[in-house]
């Protein structure tokens, strides 16, 4: 189990990502809270992979259709989290500067979530009590 340092740096990354998202919404020249909808995608993104890890027992098979389907859906959720602010900006609901801040926040948050899975996800003795 990786240590406290990794946990703290991941939580710092999460805080920075959410900071970018809130800046994109709350700065006085933008003042539009539509980009908060990407929070929905942040919450959804780990779910397919977690479900596939729970459902499938064999961790050493090289090919695994359930894991690949979950990876496909996760990629879709990540693409959607980038697509939504871009479409908001093209429809002039938010400013392009706000879009850039939200996209930066997305990059940081998804890197944090990926880091979380890389650091804390790979367990050789997968024990159910961890969840």
């Amino acid at each position, binding site marked *: 189990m990786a240590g406290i340092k990794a946990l703290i740096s991941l939580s710092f990354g999460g805080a920075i990502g959410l900071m970018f998202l809130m800046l994109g919404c709350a700065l006085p020249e933008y003042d539009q809270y539509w980009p908060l909808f990407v929070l929905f995608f942040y919450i959804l993104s780990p779910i397919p992979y977690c479900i596939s890890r729970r459902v499938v027992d064999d961790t050493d098979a*090289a090919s695994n259709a359930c894991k690949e389907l979950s*990876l496909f859906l996760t990629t879709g959720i990540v*693409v959607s989290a980038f697509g939504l602010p871009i479409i908001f900006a093209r429809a002039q609901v938010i400013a392009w500067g706000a879009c850039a801040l939200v996209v930066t926040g997305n990059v940081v948050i998804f890197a944090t979530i990926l880091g979380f899975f890389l650091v804390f996800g790979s367990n050789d003795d997968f024990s159910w009590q961890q969840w």
Partner: protein
Amino acid sequence: MSGFLDSIRCGDCECNVDWGEKRNTIASVAAGVLFFTGWWIIIDAAVKYPDQDNFNHAYHACGVIATVAFLMINAVSNGQVRGDSYSEGCLGQTGARVWLFIGFMLAFGSLIASMWILFGGFVVPQKAVVYPGIAVFFQNAFIFFGGLVFKFGRTEDLWQ
């Protein structure tokens, strides 16, 4: 303070990752990017041109059929079509082949239909705004190629 950079080692990462093992992962991610980018392109066109005159709402059917075709193509594994999987499934080997055949026909059909929509609906009548036609074409092209990558980019060998 002196020597605080001494312990940093650059280029020390043992990047001996086996790319052959990662083929399925890369194919799944690439297919996901293609498929969902296609859908976000059409969402963008629908948001920019919401009225029926600029973007006839019936043209959405093309992308829907392409998605159904994607699901059909990827619902059967190559092993079931070849007949060498453990269980026969609901339809058996012949049923799996018919299902795959219909799925590919719908996929090709929706790709051809998207080109028809672009040229017949937007280019030939010389409409003022061509972007929705281009968006329909790219949506279906991306969904089609996403389906191909997801179907053929992954290997089903259990032992490599």
